[in-house]
């Protein structure tokens, strides 16, 4: 069936996001020549890093047939906890660098722990992922608000200086967060496509019963996907904190929507079973580029920004619509 095979080769489902991104890049350059500069490109990639990294974890969860609504509040709580810890340690531990390192470790552990807790409630507690993470969405944010006494938790200045390079520094001309994003993407891609774990995640999302029949430890794999997402949130937070230096009850608001959108725009099915890390990365970048372009131009009323974003998202999705 050469017709069918070549249809697969040019599968729009696969290339929709890329095409969408390319079109956006062209539009951006046309609207503002400064758009296509290295600095701007790096800016966009750097700021995509948080959501991008979270999206990669989210991609696993969604492929496995789950969902996590709590990532934004989780990031906020991790940021808050991490800053409190670092501020507290700053007195006793001498070197700010050591303090920051401890803070980072704490963030990753906390993230992983939260994720595993989700996984535990979902697999052992047999509660819908939507409900569990809707619940913790509230819980995490409330805890942060309480820790912050309704205000903001701010990193001490000298720590801020020691921590700054993690966001603002660069290596070979490429900002650190972009490197980390790249690393996480590659690791995510390998994990999904080249390890048994990744295979199981896809199998579970495609047909949980079949996976069970194939003696896949479904509960354990699901638990791990949530744990993995938690770690990704931890990594994202580690990059986020030096940027804004504080955590407040509005930190990470609606990140869950952005992360899920990046995954779905990237061509992963909302129902699970199949998905792509590369697509997710492109989806995340694409969403950033839209708002970057909106920032760089003033052709439409600021009130309508969200409308433009909405239209572009729908249009990109249309490019990669499912086959009939």
């Amino acid at each position, binding site marked *: 069936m050469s017709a069918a095979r070549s249809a697969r080769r040019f599968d729009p489902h696969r290339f929709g996001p890329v095409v969408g991104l390319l079109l956006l890049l062209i539009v951006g350059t046309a609207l503002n020549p400064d758009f296509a500069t290295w*600095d701007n490109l790096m800016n966009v990639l750097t700021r995509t890093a948080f959501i991008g990294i979270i999206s990669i974890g989210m991609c696993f969860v969604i492929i496995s047939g789950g969902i996590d609504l709590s990532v934004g509040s989780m990031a906020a709580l991790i940021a808050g906890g991490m800053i409190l810890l670092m501020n507290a340690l700053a007195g006793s531990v001498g070197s700010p660098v050591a303090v920051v390192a401890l803070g980072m470790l704490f963030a990753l552990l906390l993230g992983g722990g939260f994720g595993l807790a989700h996984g535990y409630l979902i697999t052992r507690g047999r509660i819908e992922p939507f409900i569990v993470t809707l619940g913790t969405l509230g819980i995490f944010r409330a805890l942060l608000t309480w820790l912050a006494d309704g205000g903001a938790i701010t990193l001490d200045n000298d720590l801020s200086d020691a921590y700054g390079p993690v966001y603002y520094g660069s290596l070979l001309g490429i900002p650190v967060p972009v490197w980390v994003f790249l690393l996480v993407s590659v690791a995510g891609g390998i994990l999904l496509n080249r390890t048994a774990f990744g295979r199981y995640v896809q199998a579970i999302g495609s047909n949980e019963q079949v996976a069970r029949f194939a003696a896949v430890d479904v509960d354990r794999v699901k638990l791990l996907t949530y744990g993995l997402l938690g770690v990704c949130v931890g990594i994202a937070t580690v990059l986020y904190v030096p940027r804004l230096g504080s955590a407040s009850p509005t930190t990470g608001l609606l990140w869950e929507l952005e992360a899920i959108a990046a995954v779905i725009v990237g061509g992963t099915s909302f129902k699970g079973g199949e998905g792509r890390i590369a697509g997710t990365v492109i989806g995340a970048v694409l969403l950033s580029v839209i708002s970057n372009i909106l920032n760089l131009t003033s052709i439409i009323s600021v009130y309508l920004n969200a409308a433009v974003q909405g239209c572009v998202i729908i249009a990109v999705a249309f490019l990669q619509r499912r086959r009939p």
Partner: protein
Amino acid sequence: GGPLGSAAFAADTVKLGVSIPAATHGFTGGIVWWANQAKAELEKAHPNLKITVKTASGAPEQANQLQDLVTVTKIDSLVIFPFESAALTQPVMQAKKKNVYVTVVDRGLTDPSAQDAYIAGDNTAFGRIPAEYIAKTYNGKANIVALRGIPTTLDNERWEAFTGVLKQYPDIKILDGKYANWNRDDAFKVTQDFLTRFKDIDVVWAADDDMAFGVLKAIEQAKRTDIKEVFGGAGSKTMVKTILDGSNPLIRADVSYSPKFIYDAIKMTAEARLKGDRLPATHIIPSALITKENAKEFYFPDSPY
């Protein structure tokens, strides 16, 4: 350099960036409107002035915009109404390092060295004035319920100022304070429940005119007569008009905290930059008690807020 000494510091053209929160609420709606108003007027008056207005719906997005304004739009001056003081300090600092002249509006940065000028409303007064007004009007004896905004540093400042004043009056009781998120609907619900819970309330401090709107509807519905006054905040045009007309006995006073200060800030910054001047480091626009007597000074019928 130019031929005249002082003019040497004046820029030929000024590219001014304005970064403000998106219009998600009456007050921020007013901010956006006034910012656009300033842009229209000033660009007309000064052909060599280019103003770019950007709205953001959260701190990270605002930080992104800052970056874009600096890197791509290449602004040389910035007027920013930060979403959050702490979170925007670092990003503004980065902008300032690139020789951008920074005017911060309303919410001061945690590190003042990141800003060249600071123009602000008085958040302490926003909480203090209603407290003093209530204490005075009710002779130091009243039952109050309060509606708070969204948990933020800003809200904390107002709340602390409010409760701080009232601590001095042992007979004034704050029955409870709950968050209503600067949202009419939430204010309606919270008030309904306050009304169920407390049978004797003298004053509701709504801490925002949008919320006061919801409060009034809830009181109206419950047909409660014990409540003597609802005190909002920020001086929205509807509330100021109500005070002016005396059309609602529950609304007799307000505290000014007009979104117009963004207009002032843009104007001051732009004109100073065009002349090559600097602004004073801090400029506090005082909050004032609005009553029937002075209400017309605070009434801007064209503003959406």
